[in-house]
Structures are given as structure tokens and as C-alpha cells.
């Protein structure tokens, strides 16, 4: 097994200690960037590496950084540590176990876009994580790695944590910024996008924790090294959060292009309790349901290949469902989630999920008819393309694909 790029605490014990991290070359890249590189040079390397955002949308990271409006100052960097997609638990492991590599990533990206202040937006439930990061940030300040005029240069940087308070929608970057401003976390109308109008109306880069944690290693080893891993479509490594009906759920850092089969059977130890695999959701609760055929299992996990299965890889939170579960039960769970998490700003999302939750309850409890199943699909399509943010779109993925791809589960449930 190759050494980890992100989950390096699995190779180097105590890497969460500043001296251990520094002995391994930690913060050398931040120092090098600040003292020997122009901000654009840093951005160019990240751009050339092919690094794409790990928060779900897969947008090229270096390209996003070039969108920052240089006529409007100050600039901000915000790390998205909201991690609330059901099935996703990778950012938490990074922050708890390899915090300095993440914070160095925040620091280098801040330098690249000229930000002197960065915020780490943690979901409220990460109360312990945020306090832990506060300690690590304080250690960095004491060691002269954060503060004014770093390494004898003119560059100054401070990093702050900020806690949300329980709302999935705050993972959406503009809702996150609203929440960081002390408001209800409801998405903003876009454009303008955060690189021109972000935190406090200032140019802001929002990047996922895992995205940023890649950055120090990319600067250290170069873009060709990073591109040598993964596939042509999606460069590099990814932390796959594997959950559900497998023997060994957990985070697995693997190159993009690893097949579902390898993840689930080699790393995840196969299906638990002697059951058979039935369905896969590759992007958490926001996923379309993939029928777990041999062809699907042999599909490489990168953004383009997963699309051929009419699904998305998203944040690569792979939920495995075995044949002891019925898909109407799964939909009852996902719809309940989205109904609870809809921020209420758009009627199709708010009312649609509310309505869908009534219909699926009926079906799930054996009180529905085949008309209800049709109605459920219709309501789901009513939500499509009518919403301000992607949550609305996410909410219908499992519904329409589940009904279409697992019709037998619904036929078994309804009275004609």
C-alpha cells in the first residue's frame, strides 16, 4: 500500500503534534511559498495539478482561485468543514488526526489569493473539532507560523474557527457565508459567485477541507506527481467514506479510478451478515441509486465514469445497501432528511419534499397505491430545475432513480 497523501496519520504516528509534523517537512511549503514564490506561481501549480474540489461539485481548484476579484479587497479564504452529507465523514478524520496539513493548506491557499484572514466553518456538531483546531492554531501562532510579517516577509495571516449550529444547507457555500455573517443559512442568488462577492461582500474562496489538505503535498511534489495518480478525468487521490452494509466501514484513501468492487470487497471486507449487495449510493443521500450489477461494480470511480451509470460521485460517500433492505424504506429515510434540511426559501423544494414525505410514508407502511408511486415520481420531477440551490435537485435523485430502477420493491408494497 502506497503511503497516504492525506490520511498521513496512518503512516506517521503523532503527526497531529507540531514538532512531528515539522520534522516531516511540515510548514516548509508554506514558508517556501511566502518567501520564494509569487502568489500566481502557487496558483499555477495547483491549476496544473488538476486538483478538483472535494466538496461534491468537482470544480477545478486552481481555476477558482484565479476568479478572485483583484479590484476589491480584502480577500478571504473559507474552509468548508460543514461535512453534513449523510455518509460523509472524511473531513472530520483529517481535522482530528492530521490537522496541521489541513491548516497548512488553508495557509498556502490564503497566500495564493492574497487573504490575510481565513475562517474554518465547522458544523456545530464539530464543537470538539473546532476547539481542537483552536489549540492547533494557537500553537502555530506561538511558533511564528501565523501572525504578522511571517518569515520576515510582508505577508500576515490569521486563521479563525467559526461554528455553525446544525443545518445541512450551510454546506452550500453561499448559505455558509450567510451563516458566517451571523444570519440564517439560506443560499444567495448567484451570480455573483463568492470569488467576486463572498464573505462581507468581499472576494472569497470557499474550499472543502479535503481539497485544501492536498495543497501542501502538491506544492512539495509538483503537479506532474499529482497528475500521475488517478485518471485522466480526475487527477489524484480521494478519501472514500464507505458506510452501510459492509464488514469494514471507514475512510479509504485511494486513487480516483478505483472500482466500486475494490473499495467494497477488498478494502471494505465485503457485505456483512452473508447478505447480497443490492444498491450503491455514491454521493451520500444526494445520490441516484445505482443497481449493484457486475458492470456497476467494475466501474472506476471518477466523476466521468460514475456519470455513465446515471449517477454522480459527488463527495464520494459510498453507501452500500444489501438485499435485506427495501428501497421504499431507503427513500423514506432520504426524503425525511431533505424535508428536514430544506431551508424553505423556494416553494418547490420546501413543499415538494413535505409532500413527498407524506406519500412515501404511505407507501412504506403498506397503505399506498400504485397511483401513489406515480404521484411520487411526478412530485419529484416538479422539484427539478426549479430551485435556487442544488439541495432541491439532490432531494429527487434517489426518489426517481429508486422507483425506476427497483420497481419490484414498490410493486410488492402497494395495493393496486
Amino acid at each position, binding site marked *: 500500500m502506497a503511503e497516504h497523501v492525506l490520511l498521513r496519520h496512518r503512516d506517521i504516528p503523532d503527526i497531529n503534534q507540531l514538532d512531528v509534523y515539522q520534522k516531516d517537512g511540515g510548514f516548509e511549503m508554506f514558508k517556501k511559498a511566502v518567501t520564494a514564490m509569487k502568489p500566481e506561481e502557487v496558483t499555477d501549480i495547483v491549476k496544473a495539478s488538476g486538483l478538483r474540489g472535494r466538496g461534491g461539485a468537482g470544480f477545478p481548484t486552481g481555476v477558482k482561485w484565479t476568479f478572485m476579484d483583484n479590484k476589491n479587497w480584502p480577500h478571504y479564504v473559507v474552509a468548508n468543514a460543514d461535512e453534513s452529507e*449523510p*455518509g460523509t465523514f472524511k473531513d*472530520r478524520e483529517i481535522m482530528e488526526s492530521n490537522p496541521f496539513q489541513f491548516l497548512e493548506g488553508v495557509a498556502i491557499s490564503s497566500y495564493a489569493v492574497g487573504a490575510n484572514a481565513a475562517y474554518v466553518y465547522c458544523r456545530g*456538531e464539530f464543537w470538539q473539532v473546532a476547539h481542537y483546531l483552536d489549540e492547533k492554531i494557537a500553537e502555530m501562532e506561538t511558533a511564528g507560523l501565523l501572525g504578522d510579517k511571517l518569515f520576515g516577509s510582508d505577508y500576515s495571516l490569521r486563521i479563525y474557527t467559526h461554528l455553525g449550529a446544525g443545518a*445541512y444547507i450551510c454546506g452550500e457555500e453561499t448559505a455558509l457565508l450567510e451563516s458566517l455573517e*451571523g444570519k440564517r443559512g439560506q443560499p444567495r442568488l448567484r451570480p455573483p459567485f463568492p470569488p467576486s462577492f463572498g464573505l462581507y461582500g468581499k472576494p472569497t474562496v470557499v474550499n472543502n477541507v479535503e481539497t485544501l489538505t492536498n495543497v501542501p503535498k502538491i506544492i512539495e511534489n509538483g503537479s506532474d506527481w499529482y497528475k500521475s495518480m488517478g485518471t485522466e478525468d480526475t487527477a489524484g487521490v480521494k478519501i472514500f467514506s464507505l458506510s*452501510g452494509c459492509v464488514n469494514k466501514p471507514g475512510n479509504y484513501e485511494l486513487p480516483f479510478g478505483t472500482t466500486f468492487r475494490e473499495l467494497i470487497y477488498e478494502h471494505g471486507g465485503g457485505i456483512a451478515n452473508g447478505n447480497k449487495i443490492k444498491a450503491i449510493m455514491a454521493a451520500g443521500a444526494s445520490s441516484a441509486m445505482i443497481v449493484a450489477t457486475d458492470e456497476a461494480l467494475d466501474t472506476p470511480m471518477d466523476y466521468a465514469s460514475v456519470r455513465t451509470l446515471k449517477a454522480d460521485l459527488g463527495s464520494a460517500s459510498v*453507501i452500500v*445497501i444489501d438485499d435485506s433492505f427495501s428501497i421504499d424504506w431507503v427513500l423514506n429515510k432520504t426524503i425525511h432528511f431533505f424535508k428536514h434540511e430544506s431551508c424553505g426559501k423556494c416553494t418547490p423544494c420546501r413543499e415538494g419534499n413535505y409532500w413527498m414525505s407524506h406519500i412515501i410514508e404511505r407507501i412504506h407502511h403498506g397503505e399506498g397505491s400504485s397511483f401513489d408511486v406515480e404521484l411520487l415520481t411526478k412530485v419529484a420531477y416538479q422539484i427539478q430545475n426549479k430551485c435556487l440551490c442544488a439541495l432541491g435537485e439532490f432531494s429527487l435523485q434517489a426518489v426517481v432513480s429508486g422507483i425506476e430502477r427497483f420497481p419490484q420493491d414498490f410493486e410488492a408494497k402497494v395495493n393496486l
Partner: protein
Amino acid sequence: MNKLEEKYADEIQKILAKYPPEEKRSAVMMLLYMAQREGGYVSNHDINDIAEIVEITPTEVATLIGFYTLYHDKPAGKIRIQVCNDLPCALRGADKFLGELCDALKIQPGETTPDGLVTIEPVMCLAACDKAPMFQVQSSEGLEYHENMTVESTQTLIESWKEKN
């Protein structure tokens, strides 16, 4: 100085220092946690005090309590056990765990034990799906995760709180 300011002067200053002076409003999130620490919920009095500190209206503060699930406007048990029964955890027995835990405590989800110590609430994914059954505990001491739990280990935990209280 209002009551909150008198009580938590240093802490309030530390929170405000994280944000630009003209963007005080950002501090409201941490101030709400601070205010509800002692009683487990944010009172109307706290709402007014917070509004004054960050210079927004009390209504604006109050809507945040309704929007975010970790703020509470009503007292409940001293300790809230928030069990995740979202899809990935439910695939690993979280619903069964929640039901059996409630049975053991003789309450329904959402209810509080007669001694006022424990409230059980189902919640959405807590980013610990590989360690189900799991829950977080919200109390005056903040939030704490408990993973790979059983009804027995949870009862032992509750006993230890009883001794402390």
C-alpha cells in the same frame, strides 16, 4: 453593560475579536451557544442581550434559534442524547438502538426522563456513519460524540451522569 456582558465579559471579547469590528453580527452564533450553556436554552432575556451586543434586532436573533437545530428556546433534560438514525447509521441498526434505548428509559423519542436528566432526540447524520450506533451529547459542557454504542454502554454512561448531578 447588560447581564450577559457582566457575566461573560472576557469570553464575549474573545468571540468578537474573531471578526472585523464592523462585522459584529458574525459573533451571534457563538454568543447563542454561550447564552444557552447554563440553562440548556436561550431565554428571551438572553435574546435581548445578544441583540444589543451585536447590534441587530431581537427578532433577528430569535429567527436563528428557530433555524438552527442546536439552539433551543425551551428547557429540556440537562443532557440531550441526540441519536443519529439517518440512512447510513440506520443501515447499521440505529433505529433499533434508538427504540431499545427509549424502551430502557421508558420514554419516547423527544421526551425527557422524569428526573429531568436525559432527553432523547433523533438527529440527522453526524459524520460518524462508520461507528453506528452513535450519538452526540449536548449539555452545559458542550457537545461530545459517543460512538459504537450499545444500550448497556449508554446506560452506564447515564449512571455516571446521575452520580455527577
